[in-house]
């Protein structure tokens, strides 16, 4: 992972920690297959909306309605791949 990808990974974990109120150790243990939407009970549509808004804010990206699909929110790996691709568009 290069430095920029590492920074996105760190930011993403911090957002999940802040939005879901998870502790440091749990979030540090997330891997690409860790389930998000549909797996974490706290992650309802309002929480997803908050998460995406924070993502936009902290990574300085814009997320359009069309960008949202099931895969990106299904797992930590999916969300990380999405955030990395979006950041590359900047």
């Amino acid at each position: 992972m290069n430095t920029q990808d590492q920074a996105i990974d760190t930011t993403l974990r911090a957002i999940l920690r802040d939005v879901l109120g998870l502790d440091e150790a749990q979030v540090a243990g997330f891997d690409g297959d860790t389930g998000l939407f549909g797996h974490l009970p706290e992650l309802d549509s309002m929480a997803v909306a908050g998460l995406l808004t924070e993502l936009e804010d902290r990574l300085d990206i814009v997320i359009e309605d069309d960008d949202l699909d099931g895969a990106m929110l299904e797992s930590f790996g999916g969300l990380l791949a999405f955030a990395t691709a979006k950041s590359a568009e900047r």
Partner: protein
Amino acid sequence: MYARWPCPTPDGGTADEMALVFGARRNARLMVIPPLFDEANRFRHQIIEIAYCLDERGIDSICPDLPGCNESLAPHSAQTLSGWRKAAAAAARHFAATHVLAIRSGCWLAPDSLPGWLYAPAKSGQILRAMLRARTLAAREAGREETAEALLEIGRKQGLGLAGWDLGAGLIAELETSEFEPHERHTVVEQADVGGKPLWLRAENDSDPAQAEALAALIALGIVR
């Protein structure tokens, strides 16, 4: 204790709203303007924690309900940012507040007549964007397709229900277009100054006494100066 205060109404009259008041007319009286919408619920407990910490430092806190918010009986759909600004200014006068603490989107309403603090001010547009997104995501879960742009189109004309809040057309327009710049009398406090995790983001309500202590200490220091 709970108090009532006369809140200005759009027709030029007043209607009673509630306020939670800590302390009894000490020299320093801080009015707290909570965040709007969902973040108000998520941050309510923390505001009480902050008020207790200020009380121990000899500072009164006044937490007025803005019309349409919290216990208010006024319809939420009839409210606007400009109306809430007037309400906040009226509450400040009524309770003889000496300082203001505004939180997140509440910062947009802070009266310039008082010195004070803006805690993690929300960016203009950000709150509406998150609410629109919550609605489109919920629709998608329910198997309907809605877009933020189409919803806004409707909202600008006739208002819109977003994430459980009835927003009038006027409020939608204000949320969409208004710009926010902190006034020079107000000091911006970022989350890093308080430490810990931002509580208004929390999907489940929570409070943090350490954060309340840190913010109260910062405010007490500022009032003494």
